């Protein structure tokens, strides 16, 4: 649409800017609050500009122990969250791309049966199967370990389905050309299918990383050891820290820190994602 009506333009921009402000205001509030001392947020008026405690607050958060969150530094929790989120993301992508590869490119007995079995698990997210899963994880001795945090969340019907749909659009001739070029199944997967799936992988990486990073219920169940706490759990614990007043300046600081990795992932992957969309290659 090429329209040139200055008033309309002004109006649409105003709406957009308002929307952005509306969305960013809470983030701004947290950022500001995290630079003040403990009392600032419980007094009126709430500060809208930076205080002078930024250095103290953040160094305490990252390196010092937070008694309110079980005495673990937030840096440690961030690391735990990162390991969990990456584990889930990479695990999910690896498992589902292989499952989709098997289902699309190989003829084996009950192929469609397996496909539907995977598909049906869409109806069984962690929350639904949480008790049996917890039982299994306990019996495997995975409580309080990264394995316990990651493995039960790895299977993904959605990602399998997505890769399957993508593989179905890859022309048969490409597979046949590769067969004539003496590429076995493994070579074909590594040399051709995987590079072609690059943009799909990038998109999934964003979604799954955020999914993994935001996990709350499951980590809460399988970890009792403070050294395995994730940052989302940490925030929650600080908010509910019993008798004391919530330490809002620390909570907001932690929230700010917890924002950083997902933002980095989105920004980094978005480039690849958009590039892939632009240079359609099939």
């Amino acid at each position, binding site marked *: 649409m090429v329209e040139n009506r200055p008033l309309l333009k002004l109006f649409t921009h105003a709406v957009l800017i308002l929307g952005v402000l509306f969305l960013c205001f809470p983030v701004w509030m947290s950022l500001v609050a995290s630079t003040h001392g403990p009392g600032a947020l419980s007094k009126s008026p709430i500060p809208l500009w930076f205080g002078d405690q930024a250095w103290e607050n953040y160094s305490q958060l990252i390196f010092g122990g937070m008694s309110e969150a079980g005495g673990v530094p937030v840096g440690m929790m961030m690391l735990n969250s990162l390991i969990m989120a990456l584990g889930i993301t990479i695990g999910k992508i690896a498992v589902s791309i292989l499952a989709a590869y098997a289902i699309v490119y190989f003829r084996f007995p009950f192929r469609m049966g397996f496909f539907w079995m995977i598909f049906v698990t869409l109806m069984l997210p962690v929350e639904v199967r949480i008790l049996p899963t917890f039982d299994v994880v306990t019996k495997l001795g995975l409580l309080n370990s990264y394995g316990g945090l990651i493995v039960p969340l790895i299977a993904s019907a959605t990602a399998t389905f997505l890769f399957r749909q993508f593989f179905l659009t890859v022309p048969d001739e490409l597979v046949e050309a*590769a067969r*004539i070029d003496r590429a076995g199944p493994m070579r074909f997967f590594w040399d051709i299918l995987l590079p072609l799936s690059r943009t799909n992988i990038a998109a999934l990486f964003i979604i799954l990383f955020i999914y993994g990073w935001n996990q709350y219920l499951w980590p809460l169940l399988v970890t009792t050891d403070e050294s395995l706490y994730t940052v989302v759990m940490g925030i929650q614990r600080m908010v509910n820290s019993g008798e004391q007043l919530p330490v809002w300046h620390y909570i907001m600081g932690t929230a700010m820190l917890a924002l950083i990795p997902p933002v980095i992932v989105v920004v980094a992957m978005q480039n690849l994602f958009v590039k892939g969309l632009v240079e359609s290659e099939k």
Partner: protein
Amino acid sequence: MATLEIKSLGKTYPGNVVAAEGIDIAIEDGELVVLVGPSGCGKSTILRMIAGLETITTGDLFIAGKRVNDHEPGERDIAMVFQNYALYPHMTVRGNMAYGLRNEGQPKAEIERRIAEAARTLRLEDYLDRKPRQLSGGQRQRVAMGRAIVREPRIFLFDEPLSNLDAKLRTQLRAELKALHRRLGATFVYVTHDQVEAMSLADRIVLMNAGQVEQIGTPLDLYLRPASRFVADFIGSPNMNVFEGVLDGEARALTLSGGGSIRFADPLPAAPGARVALGIRPEHLHPGDEGPGRMELTVTFIEQLGADTVVHGTLGNGREPLAVRLDGVQMREAGASLPLICSPEHIHLFDADTGRRLN
């Protein structure tokens, strides 16, 4: 370089779709054989069985005398060029050509040498570092040919490689392909639905219809002595005129089912009273009053092609359509009548029921 022998080859797809049946073809070393026929007649199926991309239901396949029914495509010493190019989109032109060689474990220097040579032959030197999407259709198809050439296979297989290109480019690449065949001296099997392409490329043509071979022969064999009405109809443009009718007691006159009749000086080589189909190519009819095989054309419209003129009309005043090709630019009014003659050696006679050739 190798011979290729196909013995009573057949393919039945799941769901009992018989795509090919009882195919026998013996292809000599260095020959360029074109499989031609209407779409859906099983050409690709046969080519894909030769390549090993499709399992063989019945019959045997020999390459250089060795039975290869159960060999993987990579083990058959063949290379294939597809209609939609099937280049690896994420690899450069160089990468596309090198891929098969790397999988074979060829040394780097050898790969480089072969790519350089193929690029020179196909005039792709300036494009080696481009991705397929940065190339035109013609260039892509050249890359696909390059990918086949560098493998130095004994047999090249082409499945309608020029069908996605515009007419001018098609003619140009056809000539390049013919030159390539002469240079390499390898065995080529080429599939197309285009009879012109088949005629201009082939050493020998295999003409197929509904999963079976109709005729195998040189392009001129097929043009001059089509073995069946189907072949006669398929080869040549404009299409051959075919009239169905019943011969009289002396086999000298044909009473047409569409009305009218044609008389001949000598008896036709068919049983008197038989039901036959008589074919005459438009270019074998000439204006004239005196002579054997006389007939009259009532003009309906003309096609001016420049080099020649195709006059369409009906036979006599009947309903049988008739076309004649005249040299150069010629004018004829619609409704005008044009007397024609045809010499006996240009008459094709087919059984009206089986379509087999009678003379």
